[in-house]
């Protein structure tokens, strides 16, 4: 029997990356993500990998893309301001179908904001931060062990579908230390990019097969609209290629949807949450169930592509949907769209730098379900 | 592709690549080259060519080259 160990969220992310086979990391110091780079600076050389502190976040993501084309599983980690700097190259990764992982440990609101306070304000930026139509996958986590698992999933998705994958953490989870037993080698599936069998007629931008630089493929990579061979194109061919790279992710929304669902079968009210907030939601639901209230929750791990069908089916026939988030209302709008007016959808936001509590959630749900007495935690 | 041969050397011109900038014409120390009516380079006086290769080094379009016959 393995002993549990005390692990920080950022450390779990770094260890998850190594577990997934990440052998290149480039980053720039920023609170609250810096411990990821600090851990990897120590550990990467021991496994034959590279960890490099760059001159800024633009350099970090760009080096990651270069390393990925060199054949390495590659990652960077940052927080909101750095994440904004990375957006141009994230678009480049999307159009060039470059597998890579970008971790964003979210902190409070725009600009310097409050670097040591948690938030969930980058949900829309994670999806729409770069310019133009593009594919993207965005994952989240709520527990330290889950940070490890989601980092592995992030690499698996990136490699399997040749797409940038963003892992949204937040300041609390990034700095939180929990007693955990992390997965052992072999326990989680680890996926690597698929190589073409034949070099001769290989088209590097036709599907998810990928040939790295230095393997004789004479691959042309460009951020311009390009044909299957990587050379500039326009008109109908450009449209076809854009639709292909967007739909390779969008049409797989269901298989990409990772989530935890509980008490949903008989639920009259459903609470939909993600990230650190899901911990309060789960506690609140347990409290309300103990009271006999028919409340369930859906804890989303995949935010984008948005699991629309999943939400539609789980909210079928419910009376009330609540979306607590550490922001002024981001994912709630997507939920509203999915629910399509079949039940009232409400947002419960908090932006004072503190986490939403189970009590706040209970209070709101009880009010809406017409329950008078409050729930107090013992 | 046009090929002009003389004394064990030849000059090759790829009109498809030529954009008619005229740099080779002006650079040629022996006045061998001209731009024709189509605006492409042509060797008018190949007899005078000393195959120095300046045209090849000045051409921005990979349109003109000098070789030694094998």
């Amino acid at each position, binding site marked *: 029997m393995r002993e549990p160990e005390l692990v920080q969220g950022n450390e779990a992310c770094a260890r998850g990356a190594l577990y997934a086979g990440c*052998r*290149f990391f*480039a980053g720039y110091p920023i609170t609250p993500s810096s411990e990821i780079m600090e851990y990897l600076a120590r550990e990467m*050389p*021991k496994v*034959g990998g*590279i960890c*490099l502190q*760059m*001159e800024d976040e*633009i*350099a970090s993501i*760009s*080096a*990651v*893309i*270069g*390393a990925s*084309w*060199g*054949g*390495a599983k*590659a990652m960077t980690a940052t927080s909101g301001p750095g994440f904004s700097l990375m957006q*141009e*190259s994230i678009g*480049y990764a999307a159009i060039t179908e470059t597998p890579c992982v970008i971790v964003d440990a979210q902190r409070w609101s725009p600009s310097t904001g409050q670097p040591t306070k948690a938030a969930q304000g980058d949900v829309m930026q994670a999806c729409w931060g770069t310019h133009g139509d593009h594919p993207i996958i965005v994952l989240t986590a709520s527990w330290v062990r889950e940070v490890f698992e989601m980092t592995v999933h992030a690499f698996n998705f990136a490699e399997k579908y040749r797409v940038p994958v963003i892992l949204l953490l937040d300041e609390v989870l990034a700095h939180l230390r929990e007693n955990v037993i992390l997965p052992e080698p072999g326990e989680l599936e680890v996926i690597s990019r698929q190589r073409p069998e034949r070099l001769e007629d290989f088209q590097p931008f036709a599907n998810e097969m990928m040939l*790295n*630089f*230095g*393997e*004789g493929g*004479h691959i*042309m*990579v*460009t*951020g*311009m609209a390009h044909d299957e061979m990587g*050379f*500039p194109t326009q008109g109908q061919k450009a449209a076809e290629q854009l639709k292909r790279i967007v739909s390779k992710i969008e049409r797989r929304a269901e298989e990409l949807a990772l989530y935890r669902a509980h008490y949903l079968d008989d639920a009259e009210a459903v609470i939909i949450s993600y990230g650190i907030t899901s911990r309060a939601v789960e506690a609140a639901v347990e409290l309300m169930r103990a009271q006999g209230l028919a409340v369930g929750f859906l804890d989303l791990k995949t935010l984008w592509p948005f699991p629309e069908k999943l939400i539609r089916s789980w909210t079928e026939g419910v009376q009330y949907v609540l979306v607590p988030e550490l922001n002024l209302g981001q994912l709630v709008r997507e939920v509203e769209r999915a629910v399509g007016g079949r039940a009232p959808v409400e947002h419960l936001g908090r932006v004072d730098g503190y986490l939403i509590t189970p009590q706040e959630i209970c209070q709101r749900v009880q009010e809406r379900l017409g329950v008078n007495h409050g729930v107090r935690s013992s | 592709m046009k090929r002009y041969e003389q004394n064990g050397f030849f000059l*090759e011109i790829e009109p*498809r*690549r*030529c*954009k*008619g*900038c*005229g*740099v080779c014409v*002006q*650079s040629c120390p022996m006045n061998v080259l001209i731009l024709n009516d189509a605006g492409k380079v042509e060797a008018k006086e190949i007899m005078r060519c000393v195959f120095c290769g300046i045209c*090849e*080094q*000045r*051409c*921005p*379009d*990979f*349109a003109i*080259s000098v*070789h030694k016959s094998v």
Partner: protein
Amino acid sequence: MAYDLLEEYLRVERLPHVWCPGCGHGVITHALACAMAELRLDPDRTAVIGGIGCSGRAAFLFDMDAMHTTHGRAIVFATGLKLVRPQLTVILTLGDGDAVGIGGNHFIHACRRNLDLTAIIYNNSIYGQTGGQVAPTTPPHKKSTTSPYGNLEYPFDIAQLAIAAGATYVARTTSFDFRDMVKFIKRGILHKGFAVIEVLTHCPTYYGRLNEMRDPYEMLHRLKEHTVPLEEWEQLSAEERADKIVVGELHCQERPEFVESYYALITRMQSQQVKGDGN
């Protein structure tokens, strides 16, 4: 250089290229291909990484792994690639705006870091691809579409900037001096460390047209007239140097190369682990 040899390195089927008639970029690209051919580089083990701008288009012409990156970032894309594929010869084709405008931060840090990359800087003193705007390399008083009354700023001297920032091989030449371009590029590629070859070149379409020198031949010769080889430069008085630019092999220095240093660290850490396991 025989063209059949050049064709090993170039995607000749993509010619004619996109550059304007008379543009110096074709000449520099030709010199780069010649340098590769003379060094007999293996195209399977060579990569060209370009930025955005006219110069970035060079990447499309090389028949090897090539990347046309984002504006100003070619150096950092190449940094990631070179670190995970040290056996690749990685060559950068950068413009002046690319290298010291939008990418200036990456440029100085690459010089400092001393990765084994060779950066060829196509310096035409203007933003060509976007239509002739003023660049950080545009000489004082020269006109561009965004300095219509003459440039009020002072330009970067790219070679001096590279030396000051720690590049270990720095040479400067012009698109007029074909053999010097080939020679310096070859030495840059062979040099272990960050090599910068600045090539002063001509943009007849914008720089020339806006500054009353439309003729590419005339522009080429003007480059020649305004540059002085290092040996002569050293004999000139400050006055004589005023409107001249020094060309030649300006700096060459041995300093630990970053990729080697990192891999030495890997070897050291891994051998310590093996020893640790044995105890």
